[in-house]
């Protein structure tokens, strides 16, 4: 079966985001961008399923600006077979991304779609679930283990309080949690090879999807700043302060 892996280009997770002074958003000019960490895990899982002979082809997809090509090349260098860039300079909300992915899934007929559980920029945690709803297929969110067995997939999910295992009929949608795997680094020869792998460029209109935002951002502001605290000299001083708080 084919596996479809949507990936997103986001601010690098090591960068501390700065809110623009005019409150219109976060300053992304000249900031290092990378593949969303949860998506790296998704790509890795898809490639491992291919290495096990479960998957025949891994297709990476990204919806975003021309520079999202770099993110797709990274996925190709990790081991994806081909890529599709749905190019747009607009900010596309999870619902519209899910609609574009549905159209691609209708065309490609993947057995599995593996997404990250959330993007570290908008922190929405929606796209996978929305895609599952639009396709009318089951969802295995926050996966820490994925096993394909015949015409179903067993997904161990990270839930509040522990782990839960569900069995889903294929085709299915899986979203990755951090513990699913450790993504590989792309080697230099593979980075070179990735340059010649096919990358198709499309537009949202090719899939008949309207990407007009449904949610308007009125303002982006800095979170409330905590008042600077004090350092105490030793354990005795700390004990005294804790007793003042009245918790022991």
């Amino acid at each position, binding site marked *: 079966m084919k596996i479809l892996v949507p990936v997103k280009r986001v601010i690098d997770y090591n960068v501390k985001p700065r809110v623009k002074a005019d409150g219109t958003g976060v300053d992304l000019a000249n900031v290092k961008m990378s593949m969303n960490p949860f998506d790296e895990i998704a790509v890795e899982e898809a490639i491992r399923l291919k290495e096990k002979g479960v998957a025949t082809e891994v297709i990476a997809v990204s919806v975003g600006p021309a520079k999202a090509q770099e993110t797709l090349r990274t996925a190709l260098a990790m081991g994806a077979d081909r890529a599709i860039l749905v190019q747009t300079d607009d900010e596309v909300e*999870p619902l519209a991304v899910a609609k574009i992915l549905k159209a691609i899934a209708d065309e490609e007929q993947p057995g599995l779609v593996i997404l990250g559980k959330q993007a570290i920029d908008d922190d929405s945690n929606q796209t996978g*679930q929305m895609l*599952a709803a639009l396709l009318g297929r089951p969802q295995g969110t926050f996966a820490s283990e994925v096993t394909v067995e015949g015409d179903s997939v067993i997904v161990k999910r990270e839930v509040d309080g522990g782990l839960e295992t569900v069995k889903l009929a294929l085709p299915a949608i899986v979203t990755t949690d*951090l513990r699913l795997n450790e993504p590989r680094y792309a080697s230099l020869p593979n980075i070179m090879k990735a340059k010649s792998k096919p990358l198709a460029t499309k537009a949202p209109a090719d899939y008949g999807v309207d990407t007009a935002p*449904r*949610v308007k951002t009125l303002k982006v502001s800095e979170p409330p700043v905590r008042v600077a605290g004090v350092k105490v000299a030793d354990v005795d001083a700390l004990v005294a302060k804790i007793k003042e708080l009245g918790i022991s």
Partner: protein
Amino acid sequence: MKTLVWVEHDNASVKDATLAVVTAASQLGEVHLLVAGEGCAAVADQAAKIAGVAKVHLADNAAYGHALAENVAPLIVDLMGSHDAFLAPATSNGKNIAPRVAALLDVMQISDILSVEGEKTFTRPIYAGNAIATVEASDAKLVITVRGTAFAKAAAEGGSAAVEAVAGPADAGLSSYVGSEIAKSERPELTSAKIIVSGGRALKDADTFQQVIFPLADKLGAAVGASRAAVDAGYVPNDYQVGQTGKIVAPEVYIAVGISGAIQHLAGMKDSKTIIAINKDEDAPIFQVADLGLVADLFNAVPELTSKL
């Protein structure tokens, strides 16, 4: 506006997370609750007593027993014919179900709200809590998940809502529950604890973590948390993890032991009322958010602290 709130429960009792969502929902309009599960009549009775609730819808069916999104989402979509907003706690169940509901209704979801600013205006954290966005929805119906620690909990007693049974759609036949491994703990639950003692990578290994962190937590009647580094290193199970990708907590007192304070971790605990940090690196970022800091070797300082409290 008529709101429908997803009741988080374990088929026996209402989970605390629901109470904060009721508070958020009551700021929008009339509050209706949905108790979906299997053998959950007792939950509905409890839910009816929550202050400020006008009605409880009870969907008791084996198909809803394990809150599988494939079965529960169509039930909610049916009920949304007569409601204007759907709210769920931003727990793993809420985050699993709500976006599926939103897509079936063809509306965008507003995730993890921190406040209700108007009928369609909310604030929510983005970039791991490094920025707060004020957003306005344009869809006819609202689908929202609520950050539990950002709203006061509604009183669990005092209400007397009517319970009405609803028959939802049958099992969609797409998914089934196989089993679960729930970590056992006699300590308070992390997300509702008043005090949390949290350990990081500096604890070295699982045994050391137990020997250093647990006695202090027990002395204070506190829940135990951990940084992602401590979880990844296998010191404690992953449901101890506090951070952007783990649990978001806001206790009265958060004691961070051997945690450097990466943004991923801070996103999960920086709304705590008082933060106490013990770390031997005086330049650790955790000291920038800590109200009280002690620069010391935790292997000496924590046992000493435990014995002196």
